[in-house]
């Protein structure tokens, strides 16, 4: 059991890293892009905006610690 737990902890660290906010923002950003893309509106601006906002929020959170 402890080996399975270690593997899960490793996978979490490997994929999610230090701040889960970034991973959540990426998934949400891609979902919003997919939703907007089904209409006729341009979507190229969504991910740059999401990435910049998530990175800024994550860095400010780290700086406050």
């Amino acid at each position, binding site marked *: 059991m402890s080996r399975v737990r270690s593997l899960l902890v490793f996978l979490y660290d*490997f*994929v*999610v*890293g*230090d*701040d889960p906010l*970034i*991973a959540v923002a*990426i*998934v949400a*950003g*891609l*979902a919003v*892009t*997919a939703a*907007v*893309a*089904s209409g006729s509106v*341009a*979507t*190229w601006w*969504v*991910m*740059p905006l999401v*990435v*910049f906002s*998530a*990175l*800024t929020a*994550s*860095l400010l959170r*780290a*700086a406050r610690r």
Partner: protein
Amino acid sequence: MSRDVLLFLSVFLASTVEGVEAVTIVLAAGLTRGWRSALAGVAAALVVLAAFVAALGPALTALPIGALRLAVGGLLLVFGLQWLRKAILRASGYKALHDEDAIFDREVAGLRAAGDGADSAARAGSIDPFGFTVSFKGVLLEGLEVAVIVVTFGSNQHNVPLAAVAAVAAVLVVVAVGVAVRAPLSRVPENALKYAVGVMLTSFGIFWGTEGAGGSWPGGDAAIAVLIAFTLLTSFGLVALLRRRRERSTAPTATVTVG
């Protein structure tokens, strides 16, 4: 600059950074616990990594192009932003710079403190389990990220061989230098390289993620260069912002005496 050149550069730089870290660990294990155990650990890790690439590569390339770009874009963004976040925190002074000399010293101290298993293993002509494990874990963990980058970049560009060549070339260069100097590769500008790789992975991740989610870019492939410039400039802005914030928080407060 063509996509293939950017692909080669991104994989080469990422592999160089991870290669430097792996070589530091293997050097520490080899010098303290014996080369036989350290190199056996390297060989075992390379076998596992090859199996991982062999399993993940065909699985990813079997996906339809839209789903592949979405998965690859998401993965690259997760990795790229982790690298970029750490690089910005280091450049602004919130996190200590990566120092291969210090890491080497720490590894050597830890390996020496682990007892004299290496001596008895050497006398018996067998493998020292501690040296083997440290070397194996070091190469496997550092190599896993490279393997993911090779497979994701390569499959998305329909050019896994070029991505693999870039990774192998980087590892060969790093190993050759490591063998020549027999010391941690502390002169490699690792922090700057990590920053550059973070920018590249994030930019490609934004591009492919958006395309995979059904979006399209004005200007097509030319948007990649614009995204690299965007990521670089915004990251410089964030470094400047955090530096000012740090200077304000560490500046001595003025004392006003009244009367």
